[in-house]
């Protein structure tokens, strides 16, 4: 077994490299991804090694980047778009909703929209406006798209390659606050498929459903809760759409209590959907209402108060208290 200790950013870089080596149709397009290697250096060195035709510094126009990727996919390429920050994906929203998500169906299955849109997402990095958003719910709501999010270097290395190999379009949400965290990456044993959620920590009292940057926060909360004698089961979705409900429901059957944690604003969100679906699936098993811990229904706030906006350990433990209060 060859493993290497890599940051998540580097693991994605290696995953991209692997995909490009394996398939000459894989190419990258985005802003500043060439010489600069992207503002997070995720594409560092790739233009040098694969050339300007396969690593394309695009004009500053996101609809153009995604719209061109659609055309490239129609021609059989497998473009990987980089959106520089979450808040800059909206100029491309029309192309994503009207073309990326629908060309496969519109063409009766002829066109494969085998493209990936990478988005560094979520907050917690002290950035200015538009650099800390959680747009995943917009994409989860959109039929035709898949939404994946890795939370550690090992998953990231494999999931980016899986997303690129997929014949479906994948919105690949990278929790940017975790880019610099290291983990062992095993390049021979593939991670489990992205569509399978993963129990990061087993526990019997409360099921904690989460994804993205919040996975780490939830694990910290679980550790703290253990001190109080409470066993949290932390599940990392990995695929935000579709959600692996069998894994989630099995956990809920066991615990009877659920909290859903994510940074996104709560209304009409992925978290709400999970709460609604598990409330329906596990009606008789639930011993307490499902509680959501999320951002608030406000624009992402100035960074000096983002700590109070984000789901943090205190808020998660508070939610644990609330679901534990209920008797069944």
């Amino acid at each position: 077994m060859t493993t290497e200790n890599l940051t998540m950013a580097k693991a994605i870089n290696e995953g991209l490299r692997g995909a490009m080596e394996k398939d000459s149709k894989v190419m990258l397009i985005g802003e500043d991804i060439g010489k600069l290697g992207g503002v997070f250096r995720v594409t560092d060195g790739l233009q040098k090694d694969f050339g300007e035709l396969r690593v394309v510094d695009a004009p500053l126009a996101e609809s153009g980047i995604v719209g061109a990727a659609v055309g490239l996919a129609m021609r059989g390429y497998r473009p990987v778009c980089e959106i520089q920050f979450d808040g800059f994906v909206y100029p491309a929203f029309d192309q994503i909703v009207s073309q990326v998500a629908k060309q496969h169906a519109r063409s009766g299955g002829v066109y494969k929209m085998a493209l990936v849109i990478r988005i560094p997402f979520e907050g917690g990095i002290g950035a200015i406006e538009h650099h800390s958003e959680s747009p995943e719910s917009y994409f989860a709501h959109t039929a035709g798209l898949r939404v994946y999010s890795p939370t550690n270097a090992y998953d990231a290395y494999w999931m980016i390659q899986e997303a690129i190999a997929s014949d479906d379009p994948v919105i690949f949400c990278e929790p940017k606050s975790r880019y610099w965290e290291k983990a062992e990456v095993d390049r021979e044993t593939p991670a489990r498929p992205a569509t399978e959620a993963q129990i990061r920590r087993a526990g019997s009292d409360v099921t904690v459903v989460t994804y993205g940057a919040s996975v780490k926060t939830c694990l910290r909360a679980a550790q703290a809760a253990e001190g109080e004698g409470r066993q949290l089961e932390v599940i990392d979705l990995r695929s935000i759409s579709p959600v692996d409900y069998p894994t989630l429901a099995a956990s809920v059957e066991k615990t009877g209590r659920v909290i859903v944690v994510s940074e996104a604003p709560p209304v009409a969100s992925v978290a709400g959907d999970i709460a609604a679906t598990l409330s329906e699936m596990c009606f008789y098993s639930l011993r307490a209402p499902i509680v959501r811990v999320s951002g608030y229904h406000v624009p992402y706030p100035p960074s000096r108060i983002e700590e109070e906006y984000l789901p943090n350990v205190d808020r998660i433990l508070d939610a644990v208290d609330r679901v534990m209060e209920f008797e069944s």
Partner: protein
Amino acid sequence: MDEVPMIQLLNPEGERVSNSEYESSLTPSEILGLYRDMAIIRRLCNEATSLQRQGQLALWAPVQGQEAAQIGAGHALAANDFSFPSYREHGIAWKRGVPPLDWLRLFRGVTMGGWDPVKYRHSNPTIVIGNQALNAVGYAMGIQRDAADEAVMTFFGDGGSSQGDIHEACVFAGVFNAPVVFFIQNNHWAISEPTIRQTRIPLFHRASGYGFPGVRVDGNDVLAVYEVTKRALDNARSGNGPSLIEAFTYRMGAHTTSDDPTRYRLEAELETWRLRDPLERVKSYLVRSHNEQQSTFDDIAAEADQMALDLREGLLSLPDPAPLSMFDHVYAEPHPFIEAGRRELIDLGFGGDA
């Protein structure tokens, strides 16, 4: 804006006119072929309109008046080229070999697309104005990577020219020198809005802002449209990059069968454009200059009538899709939400026999 010079090779009276930059390369029999194309799509389009009136189509977007623009441009496409239409390009679909019945499927409401885009090298209609231009440029970037001897042409309207996507398509095309031709059918109207709601100068000037050629051609002159488009596509194929063509034409019919153009435009304007009919001038030319007989045109009309009959018959026997088909191609790979939806529809008894 009407007073700008434009490329013309055949005037409304059917007389060949000379142009300093372009010469017609078509033989009389080829020109007759183009006439036949135009006559057929006009006839089929009329049939579709009446099918809509009879409740057999949900909607129809007529092409009348724009036959020369589309047949001229479509004729210039090489077999290997690829085209990205909007929703009104029935003439392009015809030239790409898409069976007429397939043009109607979308408008009958049995599909989101209508044909195999790869087989005909002609993408499905794009309804969100402007989207297709960017997809076309991306496809053209693919051609560059394949070092293929192909070009792409994409179609949009005077209205469409205002969309941000058109701009970004032009920016990308210019920057990457992509082998793409932007073909604007300026048919004077975007539903009820005249072209002055989109621009105060002729649209072909837009190209100069991106550093590639732009030209206005008489869009009702099939000879001129063909030559102008052919050169543009040749240029694209030979590495000379993108260009923009503004075909100056007119939408003689309603925007769609849902539209009532009497609310916003004057009969006099239609009258002017009737005198510039794209078919009549070719017919005059062939009769006067090449002694073509009326019987030839009668034969074409009869052929077109027969095709219209076939089209009608085909449409009337078109089955509705199975309800379960709505789940068929949403994803290429298995998806639990799709499976759940399918099961629900079946359980509800809406699944048909499946």
